């Protein structure tokens, strides 16, 4: 290795040089607003840049060492970086502490990765490992479900937790809905949030203008969104994958801009407020009943508690999400579901076998849109206020990130990714600012290192011959 060390140093120096060139004007110089409207000044923060560049130099060196198979030096470098990041040593900004420490963590993981993977593969190969793995895949989902059902009865269920749980479940449902389109049918939809918006505005308008209730509108909103899916999808589903992605992005933006500018119909940027919440058999969740209505606490004879409404919402979204999941699992076994997966793998072969690609894609698109519509009207009922701001492109990107991170086509992966991407940043509030940065980087890293997602699941749902029986691969 003696001869390779200088070349590693050179490589790390080059990387650091590129990082410095990238950072010098964006990180090194900061624009500073000075009082007046046209005034802008700048200052320089080269210390930030220098720490970042040194960290990148060390990190790159560590990666080269790891590639050369030197485990312990890499781990030592990583631990040193973590120590610097976690030390009371004053780095120029708080972000740099995170940056250096996380870099160290990644180096340590990279260092022990070959060994850890070897051990894990060996452990999974033993009879106990095999049995555990099988039981895990079989029971993990059920355990998760049981935990989700029991959550409101645990002492942890304060208002903050329940709020977060409802939010996570909303994204789980959207992720599952988009998974039908992206994961199963292989259609990259960048305008998924448009259907979410259609559902939300359907409920908001029908309830505030025509006095319809949540349970009446819910199926209507789903149908409305599915209709939009069919109308928008029909002309464009013949397009190639990446063109389709851009067109759906265009549709998403058109719908948002229309919602924003058609003030007579949607109240424009001011949004729609005082949307009624969902009722339980006609009873409303409030302390004092509105005229001619009953409150839930009266109907059930319990004392009023503000949390009841939240728990009720939680069960609604849990139920809606489960319906999405069960529906998807069933569809995967039907001919149309199998056609989706076949289409994802090879469109030309499908065409040759007599599958109509446009119609098959259209069903996936419409069903995905329908679930987004359900989720949208739930969102409107929960928030009680909606505006076009909630339906920007970035929402589509977040939902897509959940699906991609979880592993396209994997249902349990979507749950894990939603908890990871939505739950973690809400828990660690000071990380919230870096959330979208981390989202973007995670999408790139997943594509580079694990393009099948955290939970790889691209097995066909149905096989001609069960795996291992000799017939299938």
């Amino acid at each position, binding site marked *: 290795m003696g001869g390779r060390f200088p070349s590693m140093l050179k490589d790390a120096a080059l990387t650091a040089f*590129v990082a410095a*060139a*990238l950072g*010098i*004007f*964006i*990180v090194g*110089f*900061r*624009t500073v*607003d000075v009082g007046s*409207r*046209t*005034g*802008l*000044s*700048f200052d320089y923060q080269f210390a930030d840049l220098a720490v970042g560049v040194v960290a990148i130099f060390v990190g790159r060196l560590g990666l080269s060492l790891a590639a050369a198979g030197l485990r312990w030096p890499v781990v030592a470098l990583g631990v040193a970086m973590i120590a610097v990041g976690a030390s009371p040593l004053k780095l120029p900004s708080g*972000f740099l502490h995170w940056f250096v420490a996380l870099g160290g963590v990644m180096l340590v993981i990279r260092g022990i990765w070959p060994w850890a993977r070897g051990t894990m593969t060996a452990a999974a190969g033993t009879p106990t490992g095999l049995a555990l793995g099988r039981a895990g895949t079989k029971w993990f989902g059920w355990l998760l479900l049981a935990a989700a059902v029991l959550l409101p009865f645990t002492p942890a269920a304060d208002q903050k937790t329940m709020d977060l749980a409802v939010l996570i479940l909303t994204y789980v449902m959207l992720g599952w809905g988009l998974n039908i389109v992206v994961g199963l049918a*292989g259609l*990259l939809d*960048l305008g998924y949030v448009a259907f979410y918006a259609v559902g939300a505005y359907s409920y908001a308008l029908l309830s505030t203008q025509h006095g319809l209730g949540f349970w009446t509108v819910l199926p209507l909103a789903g149908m409305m969104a599915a209709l939009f899916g069919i109308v928008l999808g029909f*002309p*464009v589903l013949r*397009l*190639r*994958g*990446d*063109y389709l*992605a*851009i*067109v759906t*992005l*265009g*549709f998403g*933006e*058109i719908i948002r*801009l*229309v919602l*924003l*500018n058609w003030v007579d119909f949607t109240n424009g940027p001011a949004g729609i407020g005082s949307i009624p919440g969902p009722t339980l058999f006609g009873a409303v969740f409030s302390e004092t009943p509105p005229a001619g209505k009953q409150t839930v606490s009266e109907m059930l004879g319990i004392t009023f508690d503000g949390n009841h409404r939240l728990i009720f919402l939680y069960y609604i979204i849990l139920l809606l999400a489960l319906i999405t999941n069960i529906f998807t699992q069933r569809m995967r076994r039907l001919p149309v579901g199998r056609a989706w997966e076949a289409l994802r793998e090879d469109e*030309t072969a499908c065409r040759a076998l007599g599958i109509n690609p446009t119609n098959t894609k259209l069903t996936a698109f419409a069903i995905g849109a329908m679930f987004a519509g359900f989720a949208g009207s739930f969102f409107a009922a929960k928030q009680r206020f909606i505006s076009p701001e909630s339906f920007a*492109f*970035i929402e589509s*990107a977040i939902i*897509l*990130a959940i699906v*991609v991170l979880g592993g396209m086509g994997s249902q349990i992966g979507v749950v894990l990714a939603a908890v990871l991407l939505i739950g973690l940043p809400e828990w660690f509030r000071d990380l919230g*600012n*870096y959330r*979208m*940065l981390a*989202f*973007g*980087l*995670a*999408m*790139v890293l997943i*594509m*580079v290192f694990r*393009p099948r997602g955290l939970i790889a699941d691209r097995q066909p749902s149905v096989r001609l011959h069960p795996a291992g029986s000799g017939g299938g691969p």
Partner: protein
Amino acid sequence: MAYFSQQLINAITLGAIYGLIAIGYTMVYGIIGMINFAHGEVFMIGAFISLIGFLICSFLGIGSAPVAILLVLLMAMAFSAVYGWAVERAAYRPLRGSFRLAPLISAIGVSIALQNYVQLVQGARPKPGGQIVSGGFNLFSADGFDVRVSWLQIIIVVVTVVLMAGFTWLIARTSLGRQQRACEQDMKMAALLGVNVDRTISLTFVLGAALAAVAGMLFLMYYGVIDFYIGFLAGIKAFTAAVLGGIGSLPGAMLGGLLIGLIEVFWAGYFSSEYKDVAVFAILVLVLIFRPTGLLGKPEIEKV
């Protein structure tokens, strides 16, 4: 008539900026068949580097506008090119040979990351750029309406025309251009004949990023205010321009940029300015549905 001429002048200026960005999309698509979703973000970074460059120039006391513009232009091109190179190296090159949508998803990730990186470091508030070039002259007057051309508009159009001419020469006449076109036609064959494919693709990104940076500087000078979000809309419009002109075709990108500028300005001028972005998105959708090869593109044959 006067109103029309004024709108036409404004439209050509805007179209020039879109055309410069569109070249980056069209070249990358031509050579590796991917939509570089992060290209709009490189444009935004170019605008930010220009903003900081102008601030540094005024700090150093460089008073002459042409000198400042030239310095900032070179600086923005050079440093944005590094972004183009680094993004390709880190996020796209490892994905060659992965499944078809992987590069696009990765590009969306890069786009989100770059946007938030700039927002975190430079702040979310719109940044006023100040006026670097002011003044202009009256072209003619009719119906009591003065048709004005500002010096800035002339600078924008001249810079764009010069760059596009230089670029066309680069692609048509130099060995780099020949390699680029060879890779576009058949990457494997080009590699067998000794073309360094990786280097050629990198250079394509570098050149596209440099042109986007110029567009960023011109945008900053023209509108006088930028924020971290400008790359999204400008990127989509430029992509629409590339598609409209025929993606993969250089003259197509220029023509498309001009047409998008015309559509946007005239829609805003004669119909409603609220729906001008809807008009551009609608054009994008309609072109992709009815004529995915665009105006000057070659039809694509899918080989199995």
